[in-house]
């Protein structure tokens, strides 16, 4: 390399850093100049994984413990004991408890926001984990001098795994038991939806009594983020990893799943068995290491041992590894994640089978196919899963309990039927409606009908009102809410004139209009109309009619998030229906509504049997292909998704989507919801391409469906934003976050919970981008913190933002 070439490399490196997704940029570069691309890639990796002493100013000559860190609250810092990622670790002593602890701290304010973010995230992730083989977090705080965050961990007096093995030389079975303890800790983390991503011998300390403890969750990743949204910051695409211990998918910048940890455990097991690393990376450049790991399977442990140890000893050791242990290690180290053990537990089970001399699963014939299937079912990808939360606010399926009931007078009903028949006759060719039968859609017909209603029935106000109500209802069902609202308002005025505002005839209009307002997110009006309907029904209505209004109010309150009132009304409706309408669609709806409320209250065990009962009842009453069966399928799919049975969720949701599509055509809120849930499910199963196209279609639909700004658009922007952010595309994420915020601000006002949430999302995105985006990020965080009621509406987020603002 000469100075000119170096300039070229430097320029490309800087361009890559500025690119929203450096890896994409490098991939593009590779087409022109593969060498240049390899250089830039390795510089990016080194940039993200630079040793801490390069950033310390100046490094080594600092006192053993910097002066301002001599005492942190009750902790007296004794000496540095290591470093994990960018952070330093000190041994400290807490006098009042006579306890030694380890304190982890970022060394200085040079830390990139991303580094700080990772640091805080590690603290939060670790706090979730309580396991005998994971170093526990005991305390956390800010340094008085620089307000730098630190956290206090259990101190493990011991040696890193490789040092422990080199000095103690444990026998094979002890090494395998050590491995099992480590593996169980990793499996436990996975159960808590955390992937470690940086497992290596130096991150595992073994105490003198032989107990291993997992350390350094510095680049661990939460698989589903059910916490504050600013934790959903994604990496800027820079890889942070130790090349020698990186899995091929990490080096290739692909999705990281629990399978990545399985691979790392495979490397650790390899090393435990052979005392050397699976890949000899000595003296190789990062590019060469990458090629080695991505293109070559490691040498079998038994063969490796033969090359390392002389003579008969080699033969003896190799024989013990040959067969099962070779197979287990190589299976964990397969390049394609789908070919590896499906889970850490599966890997541990095989080690256990080896120890108890049972046949291991990895050698079973035809296991490949089965395992692949299994892996696909159980893989937990790294996805943005605030999705679940957003899905719930986006709304599961709208209930359509208020379908028109034939309760108008008989003659009126006959007249209505006649009108409808007449209306649909225009669908035949040769009529004068101006509509060609083969082109006429239900929408066109309804529009035509609405016009005719107003023109032809001017002298029959009762019939006109009844028809306005029906046609309005149908418009509502087709999600043509603006038309529905105007038709129903006309019906309302007409009937008020005819019958007076408290007449039984009014109740139906109030209910329908309430539904339309609810669908347009105008909940105050929806509630007011629902209450008027309830007053009338309580006085004069049948149990069925009372139940219907109660059920409607329950749903509206559910939509507004007032879950206790929602539960109250829904239970009342359900009680009436159990008695008066057993085996009915209405009962199924109430059951479903109550399940939705439980679902929102996170009472999954209460919700699931209700969803199943509702589904069964609907299938029984309505047949398997009814639109309302789709609703039940969708809701159950959502719950199964939350419970991480992704295959089941996908099966249910695809069944729902097929039904909905046949019934309402491609533009309907239910299709939107269905698409979005499906996107979440396929993301969870690793099919990012399909997920993205589902989101894109959803966004288009959200705009096609509503004329003005609507929360469906905002929620979809939010989801797509999260999704692209997770793919490392921060700039695109920023666009969607901005749109989401804009729409929520417009629809709900800037102090609304969703609007606040969107603001924090945008701020977090900008913060992750850093640089000149920081001022705006901080301004947004501040405006969030200053918003009235922010602390009550989003307490966890509020606390995080306050901390973040204090840290600066």
């Amino acid at each position, binding site marked *: *390399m*000469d*100075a000119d070439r*170096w*300039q070229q490399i*430097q320029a490309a*490196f*800087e361009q890559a*850093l500025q690119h929203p997704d450096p890896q994409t940029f490098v991939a593009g570069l590779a087409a022109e100049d593969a060498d240049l691309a390899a250089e830039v890639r*390795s*510089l*990016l*990796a*080194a*940039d993200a*994984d*630079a*040793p801490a*002493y*390069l*950033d310390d*100013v*100046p*490094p*080594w*000559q*600092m*006192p*053993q413990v910097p002066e301002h860190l001599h005492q942190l609250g009750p902790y007296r810092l004794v000496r*540095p*004991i*290591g470093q994990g990622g960018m952070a330093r670790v000190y041994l400290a002593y807490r006098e009042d408890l006579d306890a030694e602890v380890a304190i982890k701290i970022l060394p200085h304010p040079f830390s990139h926001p991303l580094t700080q973010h990772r640091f805080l995230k590690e603290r939060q992730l670790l706090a979730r984990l309580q396991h005998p083989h994971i170093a526990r977090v005991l305390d956390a705080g800010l340094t008085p001098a620089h307000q730098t965050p630190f956290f206090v961990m259990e101190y493990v007096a011991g040696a*890193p795994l*490789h*040092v422990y093995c*080199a000095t103690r030389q444990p026998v094979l079975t002890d090494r395998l038991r050590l491995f099992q303890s480590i593996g169980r800790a990793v499996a436990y983390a996975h159960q808590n939806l955390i992937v470690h991503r940086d497992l290596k*011998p*130096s991150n595992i300390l073994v105490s003198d009594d032989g107990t291993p403890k997992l350390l350094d969750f510095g680049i661990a990743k939460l698989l589903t983020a059910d916490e504050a949204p600013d934790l959903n910051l994604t990496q800027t695409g820079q890889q942070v990893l130790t*090349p*020698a211990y990186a899995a091929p998918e990490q080096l290739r910048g692909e999705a990281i799943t629990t399978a990545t940890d399985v691979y790392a455990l495979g490397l650790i097991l390899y090393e435990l068995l052979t005392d050397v690393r699976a890949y000899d*990376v*000595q*003296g*190789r*450049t*990062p590019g060469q290491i990458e090629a080695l790991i991505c293109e070559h399977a490691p040498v079998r442990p038994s063969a490796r041992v033969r090359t390392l140890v002389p003579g008969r000893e080699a033969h003896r050791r190799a024989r013990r590894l040959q067969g099962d242990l070779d197979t287990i290690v190589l299976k964990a180290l397969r390049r394609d994640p789908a070919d590896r053990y499906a889970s850490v537990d599966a890997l541990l089970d095989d080690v256990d089978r080896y120890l108890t001399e049972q046949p291991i699963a990895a050698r079973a014939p035809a296991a490949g196919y089965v395992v692949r299937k299994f892996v696909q079912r159980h893989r937990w990808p790294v996805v943005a899963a605030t999705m679940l939360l957003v899905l719930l606010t986006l709304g599961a399926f709208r209930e359509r309990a208020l379908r028109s009931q034939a309760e108008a007078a008989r003659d009126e009903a006959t007249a209505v039927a006649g009108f409808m028949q007449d209306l649909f006759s225009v669908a035949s060719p040769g009529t004068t409606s101006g509509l060609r039968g083969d082109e006429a859609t239900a929408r066109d017909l309804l529009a035509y009908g609405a016009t005719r209603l107003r023109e032809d029935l001017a002298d029959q106000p009762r019939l006109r009102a009844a028809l306005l109500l029906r046609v309005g209802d149908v418009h509502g069902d087709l999600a043509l809410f603006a038309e529905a609202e105007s038709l129903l308002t006309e019906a309302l005025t007409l009937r008020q004139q005819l019958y007076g505002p408290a007449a039984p005839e009014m109740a139906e209009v109030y209910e329908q209009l309430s539904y339309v307002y609810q669908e347009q997110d105008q909940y105050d009006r929806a509630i007011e109309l629902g209450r008027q309907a309830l007053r009338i029904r309580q006085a004069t209505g049948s149990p069925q009619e009372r139940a219907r209004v109660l059920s409607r109010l329950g749903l509206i309150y559910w939509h507004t998030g007032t879950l206790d009132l929602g539960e109250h009304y829904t239970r009342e409706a359900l009680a009436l229906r159990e008695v008066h309408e057993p085996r009915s669609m209405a009962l199924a709806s109430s059951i479903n509504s109550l399940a939705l409320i439980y679902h929102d209250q996170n009472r999954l065990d209460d919700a699931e049997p209700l969803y199943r009962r509702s589904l069964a009842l609907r299938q029984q009453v309505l047949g398997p292909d009814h639109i309302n069966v789709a609703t039940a399928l969708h809701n159950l799919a959502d719950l199964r998704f939350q419970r991480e049975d992704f295959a089941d969720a996908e099966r249910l949701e695809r069944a729902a989507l097929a039904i909905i599509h046949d019934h309402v055509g491609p533009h309907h809120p239910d299709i939107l919801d269905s698409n979005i849930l499906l996107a979440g499910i396929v993301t969870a199963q690793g099919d990012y391409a399909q997920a993205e196209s589902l989101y894109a279609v959803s966004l288009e639909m959200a705009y096609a469906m509503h004329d003005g700004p609507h929360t469906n658009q905002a929620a979809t922007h939010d989801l797509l934003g999260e999704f692209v952010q997770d793919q490392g595309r921060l700039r695109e994420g920023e666009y969607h976050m901005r749109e989401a915020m804009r729409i929520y601000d417009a629809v709900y006002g800037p102090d609304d919970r969703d609007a606040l949430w969107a603001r924090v999302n945008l701020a977090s995105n900008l913060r992750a981008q850093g640089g000149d985006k920081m001022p705006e990020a901080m301004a947004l965080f501040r405006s969030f913190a200053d918003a009235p009621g922010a602390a009550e509406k989003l307490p966890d987020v509020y606390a995080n933002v306050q901390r973040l603002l204090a840290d600066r």
Partner: protein
Amino acid sequence: MANLPATEVTQLLHAASAGDAGALDRLMPLVYDELRGLAHRVRSGQPYETVNTTALVHEAYLKLVRSPEVAWESRLHFFRVAARAMRQVLVNEAHRHLAQKRGGGQMPVTLHEEAYPQPIEATTLLDMDAALERLEQLSDRQARIVECRFFVGLTMDEIADAFNISSATVYREWRVARAWLARELQPA
């Protein structure tokens, strides 16, 4: 060298500020000797790792320059030279340190790449020095910036002033040099 007249250093700094590149080269041995002497006295038996180079350079400056009429700009020129000198002092110390260890047969064997409980090792320092020599071939300015940052602990802004370039440029140069060094120093 301790009795070097302060005015000589001051004059060399003025010359450097006026664009005389040779002035800085002539300054170098003066500063080196001063720093080495200071380091030796300050250390007096402490391990070399605990020497605070920032303090040393400041002390050397006070001894050698002192004069209040030396502009801030010249002071930073001084730091630029001092950074080179400090590097040399530390590298020589590290060589001596390792030689002593070898004599005593005390070389620790690192089994893996992670320097586990070490703040920084003599070998790392020497690796850094060697890497910087290679970096000099690619970009002299980047090597100088690293020196200022790593061996003296100047801030980005101070470096920018010392080199008469913008802070943004310093940061860019530092970022790529840092990545390059991280790669070079990557434990194989």
